[in-house]
């Protein structure tokens, strides 16, 4: 396996570095960054719009370009999250939590710089896995049955209940609201529709893009009525953009952990990068010596989720390219592209189309290097976004959100969904309910429900399946341990606050 690696890499590089492929790679990543920055204008919509062009391109070139948009948008998504508290993509929502406070402290440049570095390392980890271990990893992904999926998502949900600072009860309440919102739509098990109120637009459920853009985007715009511009961004020198030694030191471990978490989530079809960024944020908050720094501008809280979502984006290509099983709508688009060019995705593809497989993999390196080169010098320009007066910037943002949400499925209904959730998000924020746990519940809840019911169907209704299958048992054990730890640390904190007040 390894002795073939070098010739394969050379083959891939010779494909990826042709003028045409390089050009389309550059086009893809620049466009990706741009749509990533603009809140609401989503990757999927952009890829769909460009899809017809790919009919006229060589399949390798076409995938290189579409993939560039996909992973490029994850770099761009962070920019608006850090500078404006508006996630460009749903997976960047969690980067707002600490990125925006950093920007308020004048550390926007450093946050952007480290997010880019983290993104690069995360993506690199995902690509390395794809180069070295794609076969064993797909075997691992396939060994996960419904019971394992359920138990592992349980860990995620419990781990993430501490995402927002403030009241744990409020945070759990928001997770539950998210789960309930996720219930609307078609119930796959019975084919019946739930809570659609006769609206055909709701049969596929509430749109994730509309929900996220409402809760984070529109709500932030309404919220901005209360505040003035950050304005004072200080002088942008190269020095102010570079992270301090302390920030660098704090970032390496989150990058390592984020790469691991992101890659793991990436190879599991159907889970998606948003979940991986939430979980890696939660993990950092768990292991931190001073978790109270989180939410107030901790660099770890920016770097970890950004690393994770880029790792997940790259690793998501593993099941798509090796098994022919797409984990998301965007990956389904990549598969569709292969089929249109007469290539049957699946286990034979790596051997039958080595130029395509290795060309695409090596183009990921090229694309990510291009993204770093594009992004670092741009930081200074992006930071200047903050000097645009809010009364000009925010109406423009609302317009972009509306265009973006509409373009995702050409549905005016979704625009109203975004506006309604904007109001709900604002109301929640006034009352101290954070939207991040809601988003996580919304994404994970329906997945967990499906996997649970499927596991019950396969085990003939026996709950034992969750502890008799070793992998599942390990996750359940982890979930219980996390729960106990959470309760214990809550109790300890309450006690430590209570003591001084008595004396």
């Amino acid at each position: 396996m390894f002795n073939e690696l070098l010739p394969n890499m050379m083959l891939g590089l010779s494909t990826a570095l042709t003028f045409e492929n390089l050009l389309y790679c550059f086009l893809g990543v620049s466009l990706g960054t741009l749509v990533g920055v603009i809140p609401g204008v989503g990757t999927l919509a952009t890829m769909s719009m460009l899809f017809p062009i790919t009919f006229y391109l060589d399949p390798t070139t076409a995938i290189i370009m579409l993939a560039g948009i996909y992973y490029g948008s994850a770099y761009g998504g962070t920019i608006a999250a850090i500078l404006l508290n508006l996630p460009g993509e749903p997976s960047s929502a969690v980067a707002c939590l600490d990125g925006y406070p950093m920007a308020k402290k004048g550390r926007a440049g450093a946050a952007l710089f480290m997010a880019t570095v983290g993104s690069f390392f995360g993506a690199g980890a995902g690509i390395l896995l794809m180069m070295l271990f794609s076969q064993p990893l797909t075997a691992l992904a396939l060994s996960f049955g419904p019971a394992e999926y359920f138990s592992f998502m349980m860990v995620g949900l419990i781990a993430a209940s501490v995402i927002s600072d403030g009241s744990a009860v409020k945070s759990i309440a928001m997770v539950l609201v998210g789960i309930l919102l996720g219930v609307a739509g078609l119930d796959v098990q019975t084919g019946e529709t739930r809570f659609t109120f006769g609206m055909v637009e709701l049969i596929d459920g509430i749109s994730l893009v509309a929900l996220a853009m409402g809760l984070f985007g529109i709500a932030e715009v309404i919220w901005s009525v209360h505040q003035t511009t950050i304005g004072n961004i200080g002088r942008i020198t190269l020095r102010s953009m570079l992270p301090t030694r302390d920030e660098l030191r704090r970032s390496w471990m989150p990058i390592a952990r984020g790469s691991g978490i992101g890659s793991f989530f990436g190879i599991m079809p159907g889970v998606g990068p948003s979940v991986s960024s939430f979980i890696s944020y939660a993990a950092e908050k768990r292991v931190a010596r001073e978790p109270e720094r989180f939410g107030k501008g901790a660099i770890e809280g920016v770097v970890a989720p950004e690393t994770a979502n880029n790792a997940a984006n790259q690793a998501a290509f593993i099941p798509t390219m090796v098994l022919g099983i797409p984990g998301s709508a965007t990956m389904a688009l990549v598969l569709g592209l292969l089929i249109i060019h007469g290539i049957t995705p699946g286990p034979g593809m790596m051997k039958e189309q080595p130029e395509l497989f290795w060309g695409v993999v090596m183009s990921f390196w090229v694309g990510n290097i291009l993204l770093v080169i594009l992004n670092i010098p741009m930081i200074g320009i992006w930071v200047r976004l903050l000097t645009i007066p809010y009364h000009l910037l925010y109406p423009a943002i609302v317009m972009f959100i509306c265009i973006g949400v509409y373009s995702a499925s050409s549905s005016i209904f979704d625009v109203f969904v975004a506006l309604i959730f904007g109001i709900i998000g604002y109301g929640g924020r006034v009352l101290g309910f954070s939207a991040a746990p809601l988003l996580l519940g919304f994404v994970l809840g329906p997945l967990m429900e499906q996997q649970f019911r499927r596991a019950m169907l396969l085990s003939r209704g026996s709950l034992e399946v969750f502890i008799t299958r070793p992998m599942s048992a390990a996750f359940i054990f982890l979930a219980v341990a996390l729960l106990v730890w959470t309760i214990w640390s809550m109790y300890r904190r309450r006690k430590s606050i209570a003591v001084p007040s008595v004396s």
Partner: protein
Amino acid sequence: MVKKQTSIGKSLLWSFVSCVALGTSSALAATCPDGFPSRPINFYVGYAAGGGTDSIARTLAQAIEESHGWNIVVENRPGAASAVMAQELLNAQPDGYSIGLGSSDTMVWNPTSGDLDFHYSDFHFLGSTMDSWNSFAALSTAPFDDIASLVEYTRETGMATVAVAGFNQTLVVEQLAEQYDINLVPVPVGGSSESMMLTLGGHVDATIQGVAHLGELRSGNMKQLASLTTHRLPYAPDSATLEEQGAEALPIQSVTVLMAPRELDPEIRTCLEGVVDEAVNSEIFADLMTKFENKAVNRGPDGVLELISNRDARLRELFNEPAAE
């Protein structure tokens, strides 16, 4: 070795497709009223970009643009398995400028589609482009090769599971279970990727698939137990149909249709029917069908209506649902 087989299979299929194309291409020459179309025509695709129906729409549009010089704008209106598109088409002007592409199945009543506000008689079908084929498949290591041995296996083990996506596939499994009085359990999932995951991971015993399993079939990882269509499938000619194997379950019959609001001007209707037929029988469309390992078939306006109304009646009969007025 594997590659060789593929190319032989493809060229065989290709020559078959070209024969079909040659046989029918002269059937209908489109005659259109003067001045139609005077502006771009919209194709509303009921599925997302990158899917099969999307490629069909774009290829047809390309064929029509090449032969007639018309301007066709393809737009995706995904949602609820093309029901969102159908609903929207219902409100469109019946002027021939709004044409929908979706699955004939969206037009057929089923026990879970109670919410939909349309009926197939609300639309005029301009023709169809291809029949969707489904097959019953399992890992090659599975201890059964056809319906009879699957039934035997289910009796021995007490239960067997089949990953299915959608109502039609679920119904086949339920009908098999009933006919043979076995504990054959459908495991419903959201789409073919999920059912492939469950099958390849060995979490279920078998699955029903349209095209997602073709790569695995070719590499020898999976095998086909039965064709769920009314005929055998070119990529697994040895695998018999349900009927040939004595199973009474309703075969899955769905086609990709082009449709317009019902009150279409007769002249424009004839024109569009002709243009669609030409496009379906064009060379570039045949080429696309080869890539899909399928073939171009236009059942014609009457053929499509017949297919939909028959299936609608059969399903209503099965579930004791009165016919719509």
